[in-house]
């Protein structure tokens, strides 16, 4: 376990923002932390970093208990804030050099590591100062600085939220690449981002964790069901196929059919050709994370 959060409660005045939150993060995984804006994600992250005191409970990172204020646990962490702020007069390389000095990195290692990271985030050719950077470039520099000292835990607060689709894809692929050397804990309210790269997902809602599991388990395939769309509407198709014995129903203008074996599937295809039905698409019936979330929230 690289991190464990035990019964953490955080109050701002009388308002309870985190209610008895417990969470453990296994090593070398990408942990998606989803929740709506204002659910308490950033608050929990700031508690993990010792930037805010917890009201009760403990957080342990890499064997070190997090203390509010000056905390040793930060030496194991790389952190990317939701809107990273840098010194505008530095170039990316100069900024990373400052970060390297602060983390007591050996001089012999420093140059090579910085080159490596600039290459990873695609900023090695940029010579201009940070003040000229776009949002996406700042976010990428943010990841580079967070990975600099090979942290055991990389914490990213909404790394993709403010970016265009290209920027988002870049960040997600960098996070995926980072998994080989560290554990990634990132928050997002964009479920499809979590779906793309996460191994595990936890959801925070109104200050409590409402589910936490492996992504695959959460969106497990609804067994032996397949989703069909046709060139005609699903209802028309269903009326034509009514006499068949398969279990069939309509969901959002798609036809969902229970086909338990390969022979049954083959048979069903044959029926479709007999009825002159042209298939537009066919895929196994899985639940999207969004549906999981909606079901839980009901």
């Amino acid at each position, binding site marked *: 376990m690289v991190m464990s959060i035990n019964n953490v409660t955080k109050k701002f005045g009388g308002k309870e923002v985190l209610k008895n939150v417990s969470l453990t993060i296994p090593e070398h995984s990408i942990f998606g932390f989803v929740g709506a804006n204002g659910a308490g994600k950033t608050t929990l992250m700031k508690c993990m970093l010792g930037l805010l005191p917890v009201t009760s409970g403990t957080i342990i990172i890499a064997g070190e208990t997090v203390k509010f204020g000056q905390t040793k646990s930060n*030496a194991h962490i790389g*952190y990317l804030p939701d809107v990273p702020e840098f010194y505008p007069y530095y170039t990316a390389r100069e900024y990373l050099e*400052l970060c390297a*000095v602060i983390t007591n990195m050996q001089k012999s290692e420093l140059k090579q590591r910085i080159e490596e990271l600039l290459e990873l985030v695609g900023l090695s050719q940029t010579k201009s100062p940070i003040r000229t950077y776009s949002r996406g470039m700042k976010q990428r520099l943010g990841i580079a600085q967070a990975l600099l000292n090979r942290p055991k835990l990389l914490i990213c607060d909404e790394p993709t939220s403010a970016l265009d689709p290209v920027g988002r894809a870049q960040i997600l692929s960098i996070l995926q690449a980072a998994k080989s050397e560290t554990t990634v804990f990132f928050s997002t309210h964009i479920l499809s981002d979590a779906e793309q790269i996460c191994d595990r997902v936890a959801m925070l809602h109104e200050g409590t964790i409402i589910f936490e599991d492996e992504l695959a388990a959460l969106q497990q395939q609804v067994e032996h069901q397949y989703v069909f769309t046709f060139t005609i509407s699903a209802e028309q198709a269903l009326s034509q196929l009514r006499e068949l014995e398969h279990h069939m129903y309509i969901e959002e203008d798609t036809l969902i059919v229970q086909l338990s074996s390969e022979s049954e599937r083959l048979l069903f295809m044959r029926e479709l050709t007999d009825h002159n039905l042209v298939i537009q698409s066919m895929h196994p019936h899985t639940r999207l994370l969004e549906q999981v979330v909606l079901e839980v929230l009901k």
Partner: protein
Amino acid sequence: MSPWFGFLKKEWTESVKSYKLLLTILIFSVIGILNPFTAKITPALMENFMPEGTVLNLPEPTALDSWLQFYKNFPQMGLFIFILLFSTMMSKELEKGTLVILLTKGLRRSTVITAKFAMGFAYWTLAFLLTFIITYSYTAFYWDQTIVQHVFLAAGCVYVFGLLLFTITLWGNTYFASAYGGLLVTVVAVITLFIIAIFPDSATWNPLQLLTGPPQMLTGDVVPKEMLTPFLVAMGSLLVFLLGTILHFNKKRL
């Protein structure tokens, strides 16, 4: 390079890139030149402005006039500009959130405060030396300086007072995390010292003596010994404010 020097280097780069070095050199050189210059030309000016035929018996300016200009310009205009220039050292970082990344990398919080204090200390020393050396050189060139007493000691008092005021500004700036917060605290501190000075007895210990005493030291009306207690009180307060800033920042919510 240790993290402390790394952060100090960042402070230095920042001050150069934001023209603080250039401004400090320019402004305090000008003040340095202005002191003997004003003393020198005042009689000439007066004669020019007077209606013709008026007989003025102005005494020839002396080294004392030049130094009195120093004590008018440097602690007022000079110190005021210096405090303005360096009053946002913490608030700028706290408002923008630039420290968050460095602190979550394991940078010690006390490093931030002590490095910033050291940088302000260095700049105030530079500002003081510039004005002092220029005033001293010109005054020595034009006049006989043997008539003024305790030139170095008197100037040193003002220097120490400036350092105390800078530390108070740093504390206010960190505590309120806004530019005006720091300035407000400084203004309140100065007003308080002036109110205390209303009571004549306080002159034996009030740090404000470091500001008002030096001109009288030059003429020998105040002896250096009288400055010892105000100096000790100033240094003590400086340490208290510096320590207070460090302790407060160690537990600051970011």
